[in-house]
């Protein structure tokens, strides 16, 4: 035992203890003297981070990441490679960002101007982005409100929840992948995509057109355009449908998904999604019964 208590041990313990002590005292004093008041939440987040200061997050160390997170008020776009997902979840918990239930939303494409319904009249050549095509002309189909079909929205989607249907030339949204982030809505230069309530069992009814031109003009370019005839407005019992600028709009907050409006639309501009198929006869009979009563 005495062998181990030789002078090397002594020197080691003393000098390292001294270095440690001096370092700690100096740090303590400096920290006291040069205190800067900051958002206490930064400390809280920093404490949860690994503290390895490896720079793996692309920022200058853990504190920088903590500051960035607190400043951004969200965890989006931040990642801590050594800490992994667990750490991020801890932070979310600590900051209380997880709570708060949102009504599930989903994006819908409000244009049905497929190549069939709105046949191309001119040929577009050049940069295949809607942003540019929009600045150039009304679109191959001629509808100045319709989908340009260059797929800017698909590009914008970070979740692989959209693709371009090569047949129709329209984007398609995959219900199970869409997280309603709104990127596509922002990207569309014609504001065709709308964020709507996901609905019970993913069921949705909406007017798949945003053309505000007069009926004839709209119809000239596209067979399935809303011509602003107003029949659906009359049909709706719940005041969910409004008519403005020759265009019907279904308010998803008021709509009860009763499925009364789609059949009355003369241009089939009203779409219903994820409903079971209609019983043709019963439906017609019901419609006939009602009509005289109205």
């Amino acid at each position: 035992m005495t062998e181990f208590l030789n002078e090397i041990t002594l020197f080691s313990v003393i000098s390292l203890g001294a270095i440690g002590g001096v370092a700690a005292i100096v740090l303590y004093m400096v920290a006291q003297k040069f205190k800067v008041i900051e958002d206490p939440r930064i400390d809280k987040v920093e404490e949860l981070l690994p503290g390895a200061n490896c720079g793996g997050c692309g920022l200058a160390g853990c504190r920088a990441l903590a500051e960035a997170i607190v400043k951004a008020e969200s965890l989006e776009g931040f990642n801590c490679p050594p800490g992994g997902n667990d750490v991020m979840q801890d932070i979310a918990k600590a900051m209380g960002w997880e709570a708060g239930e949102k009504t599930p939303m989903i994006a819908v494409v409000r244009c049905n101007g497929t190549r069939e319904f709105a046949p191309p009249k001119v040929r577009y050549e050049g940069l295949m982005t809607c942003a540019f095509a929009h600045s150039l002309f009304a679109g191959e189909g001629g509808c100045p409100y319709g989908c340009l079909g260059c797929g800017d929205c698909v590009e914008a989607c970070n979740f692989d929840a959209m693709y371009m249907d090569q047949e129709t030339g329209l984007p398609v949204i995959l219900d199970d992948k869409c997280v309603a982030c709104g990127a596509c809505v922002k990207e569309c230069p014609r504001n065709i995509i709308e964020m709507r309530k996901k609905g019970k069992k993913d069921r949705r009814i909406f007017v798949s057109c945003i053309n505000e031109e007069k009926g004839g003009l709209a119809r000239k370019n596209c067979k399935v355009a809303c011509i602003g005839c107003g029949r659906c407005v009359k049909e709706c019992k719940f005041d969910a449908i409004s008519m403005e600028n020759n265009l019907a709009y279904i308010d998803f907050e008021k709509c009860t998904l009763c499925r009364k409006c789609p059949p009355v639309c003369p241009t089939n501009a009203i779409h219903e999604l994820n409903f079971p198929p209609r019983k043709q006869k019963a439906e017609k009979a019901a419609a006939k019964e009602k009509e005289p009563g109205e």
Partner: protein
Amino acid sequence: MEYIIIIIGAVFVNNIVLAQFLGICPYLGVSARVSTSVGMSGAVMFVMTLATLVTFLIFHYILVPLNIEYLQTISYILVVASLVQMVEIILKKVSPALYQALGIFLPLIVTNCAILGVTILSVREDFGFNLLEGVVFAVGNALGFALTIILFAGIREHLDLMDVPKGMRGAPAALVVAGILALAFMGFANLV
């Protein structure tokens, strides 16, 4: 002249990143933008010089006389860590502008093996540096780090605008660039 040789050697011939593999983490991590990498280089230069100075004294006046050189690693890391933290705290208070430019990179530097590596190298027997030479050596290495990280940041910004194939995007392309840079720097072999 001797100092110039030390610096040229450290910057070009035995570049700290490309030939010695030190400081790779910040080299890959903080080189996304030229402006960031300039800030990082400044911070590294500052800390590397200071740390080498302090550890050099500790090594020669505490560890060697007491015959406890084996405590080099542990005492160095303690010194470097607390030194960096101290500098950071002071800088934050005294000069917020400088802190924004350099200070925010300071925490990264604690675990930057370039600092610890250079402090250990500078007391290596085969260099036999005196204090001033050791400090010049540290400055040279910091310059070498700065040169490579800034060059690298430039190339990365350039690659950002290119559609690098998916598999190679990010770290792989960055590493290959580093490899080619290292190849090119081999041309400086034996310059001094």
